[in-house]
């Protein structure tokens, strides 16, 4: 097990080195002639008006929240599924109760329009 994680760590480092090497190579090969117009923000040729860092609508936050809840749910589903063969039939109904309670949440969000993209 330990050597597996050691491998993952080293793999990550090498994976990180791919883009770094690419950018380094581009530094050496690519021309660099900066200019004010060239480096302006690209909005299809129009002058930019206002800042891009604006306030976003709450809809995104609601999506993220529903996502977190269901993500946590799946984390509980995985050990259940893996251990399922060793568990009695009761485990199925225990999980169905768990899913139904969260299903109420999904139905509630649906009915309240939290799943609508405005």
């Amino acid at each position: 097990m330990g050597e597996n994680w050691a491998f993952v760590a080293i793999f990550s480092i090498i994976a990180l080195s791919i883009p770094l090497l690419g950018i380094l190579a581009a530094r050496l090969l690519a021309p660099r002639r900066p200019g004010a117009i060239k480096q302006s923000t690209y909005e299809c040729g129009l002058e930019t008006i206002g800042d891009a860092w604006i306030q976003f609508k709450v809809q995104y936050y609601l999506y993220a929240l529903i996502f977190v809840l269901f993500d946590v749910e799946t984390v509980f589903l995985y050990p259940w599924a893996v251990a399922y063969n060793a568990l009695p039939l009761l485990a199925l109904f225990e999980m169905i109760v768990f899913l139904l309670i969260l299903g109420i949440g999904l139905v509630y969000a649906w009915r309240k329009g939290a799943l609508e993209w405005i």
Partner: protein
Amino acid sequence: MLHALPLAETSLSGWLSGLISGHALLPGEAPLAWAVVIASILKATVIILIVQIGMLYATWGERKVIGRMQDRLGPNRVGLFGLAQPFADMIKMLTKEDITPTAAHKWVYNLGAILVVPPAVIGFAVVALDRHLIAADLSVGALFFFAIGSTSVMPIFMAGWGSRNKYALLGAMRAVAQVVSYEIPQVLSIVGVLLLAGTLSMNGLVISQGPLGDAFPGVWYVFLQPIGFIIFLLATTAEIERTPFDIPEAESEIIAGYHTEYAGIKFGLFYLALYFVTISASAVGAILFLGGWQPPFGFMAGLPGWVSMTAKTLVLVFVFMWLRGTLPRLRVDQLMAFAWKVLVPISLVNLMVTGFLVKLVAGWPPLGVFGAFAVANVAMVLLLLWLVAGWRRRSGARQMSFDRPRDIAAGAAVRGGAA
């Protein structure tokens, strides 16, 4: 070279530790630990090189396939059949000027482009190309893969925010909302497979689909979990933002989405990451549903595992290209509704039904198991059609967020599947 690897791989650590301790390069009990490090570096380099070449030719393959589908030739000028095209593209990317907009938050902007690659590559660490050609057979391999995939939203966010461009930020927000929405059906769709296999280890998942499988031997999970497989495929297409789910970079709406401001090699990195995840997602799909490195038929037992695995992966890569060549892009509200109102409920029902069936068919002969799953899946499809029909009747046909031509196509696909 590939074939020699399995032999070398199993004893690489041992051989290296002998070598290091023999030459007394390092003192004490260190040799073994250092052997692990050196062996890991070697393995990682080899795997990344293989994957990198695969990625380069996936770009070529995609352009060829889409070209043929659109009655064009695709790249054919650079080298034989255009085979040198990926290298020409690489040189072009490297020699193009790399622009950083003045408005951008320099650090976040550059880091976004750099960090977009690792999540796409690290997933390969747990992909089993062959029984012994797996880098890290983590006991939680499948979960690890999805966990790494889920981190890909961070560089997207960094790219969009760091660019300080309205379209880039909007694209990033859309992309993140989409990726997280489709992550739920994606991870839920494979719970059915986990119920059957009882393990998260990639090798374990493959073995359980082979003749030595514990519970249901010799059957690929795509035959027991067809609905799960379709959900996995759709959710993965959205997760890796390929057409028809590429709304974050819909050029008709928001220029190029979160990578609007990137040029030269930094744009190339986004392109690179897209093809890396296409391959890795196909490989994991092949492991979970198509039996991984197990040969497709019993008489092919002599076939090396990596041949089967590569063939299956390429089939799935082709399916992704096919989808891109065939389907038009969805609208953003359709897209979100599809994840939460269609895919998530179906996958929840599918996993409950699968849980029930696994307990029911324990000890049945293989044909009975297969029949039970087939009946259940057909029943679920019919139920779904009935629900959709009722829904459409109540809300009026045009009110549904699905347009008519798509409905006809979907109906035809379902009829074809049921027949």
